[in-house]
């Protein structure tokens, strides 16, 4: 593969604009400080895009430098997203006063995931580093998905009704599940990687758009019964 095509550059550009839009929407609606880590994640994502673009233009798309920067920055961003998720946990579980335990649990989980990925790859391949980053990303997204699922359970149990929080968590769940499935598919069928690049970029656009939507259209005081969303006829 020679490099990204026009459509990939376009989606990349759009995605970065959407990430900036999240911060702008949060600022405009006075939610920047309330959701500080979520906004920091978006800003970090913009910074990573700039760094990736710089490496891409300096070394080329197929260079090992770009591959490593791509996967390691992806893993770093996912870790950043863990902290954003932890802030949502703190918001939902604020009545329990469990912030310190939450922080400790998040760090423990991160270290555990990295060690597990390293152990799996060490047993299975000689191309340790490149395989490790894909394996790590897949596992990080999957753990993120499980954590979001648990948070959704907590929202239902604690009867959290803030529409904005509910939409932020649900969109995060959609994002994590799509990425976990995408990385798992890459692991299962390595030949589909080139096809999945554009798909992955489009999935990447979902989260900033969904968060911008939540900040813009769901005021902090809006309420929604989450049990209504989960009700399905029998």
């Amino acid at each position, binding site marked *: 593969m020679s490099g990204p095509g026009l459509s990939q550059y376009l989606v990349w550009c759009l995605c970065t604009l*959407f990430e900036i*839009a999240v911060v702008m*929407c949060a600022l405009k609606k006075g939610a920047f400080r309330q959701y500080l880590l979520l906004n920091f994640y978006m800003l970090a994502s913009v910074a990573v895009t700039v760094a990736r673009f710089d490496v891409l233009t300096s070394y080329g798309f197929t260079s090992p430098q770009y591959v490593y920067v791509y996967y390691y920055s992806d893993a770093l961003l996912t870790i950043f997203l863990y902290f954003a998720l932890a802030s949502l946990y703190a918001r939902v579980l604020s009545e329990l006063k469990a912030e310190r335990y939450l922080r400790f649990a998040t760090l423990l989980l991160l270290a555990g995931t990295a060690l597990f990925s390293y152990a*799996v790859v060490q047993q299975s391949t000689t191309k340790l580093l490149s395989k490790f980053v894909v394996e790590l990303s*897949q*596992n990080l997204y*999957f753990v993120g*998905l499980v954590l*979001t*699922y648990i948070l*959704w359970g907590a929202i239902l149990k604690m009867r959290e009704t803030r*529409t904005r929080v*509910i*939409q932020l968590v*649900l*969109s995060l*769940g*959609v994002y994590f*599940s*799509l990425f*976990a*499935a995408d*990385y*798992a*598919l890459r*692991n*299962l069928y390595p030949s589909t990687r080139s096809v999945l690049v554009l798909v992955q970029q489009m999935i990447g*656009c*979902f989260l900033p*758009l*969904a968060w*911008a*939507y939540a900040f*813009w*259209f*769901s005021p902090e005081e*809006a309420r*929604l019964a989450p049990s*209504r*969303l*989960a009700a*399905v*006829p*029998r």
Partner: protein
Amino acid sequence: MMAAFIFVVSVVIFLQFFVFYCRSLIAVSSKQALSPEVQEVTGIQKAASGEDFNRVMQLLHLCPERPEDRKGIQAIGAYFRLLSFVGSTVARLIPSMKSWTELERGNCTYFAAIALERRISFSRDMLAQQIDA
């Protein structure tokens, strides 16, 4: 083996989150009332029907796009197609499912009508700004 497990679990949980997310978008829009003007244009008086969804979407695409609502509309479009698929397959065997899918399809139409309302007022604001300038 591990990757296959993660893939299957992720797809199953994705479907759940996707349905809940779309329903949260619909729930927010269902609290807003349609203006008489949009009611007249869309033909939605009290309850919206799933049959009107494509027509309302066509009207929606005639208005200038707003980047903030693009993904929500796309998500609801995908949810509507999913409901139509469920309605024409699984729901044929379960009567309660049939009425639920119809209700949800109607809610999707209402969401699209609310988005239309927003786009119309957005276009009006833009026009007013241009005239002022």
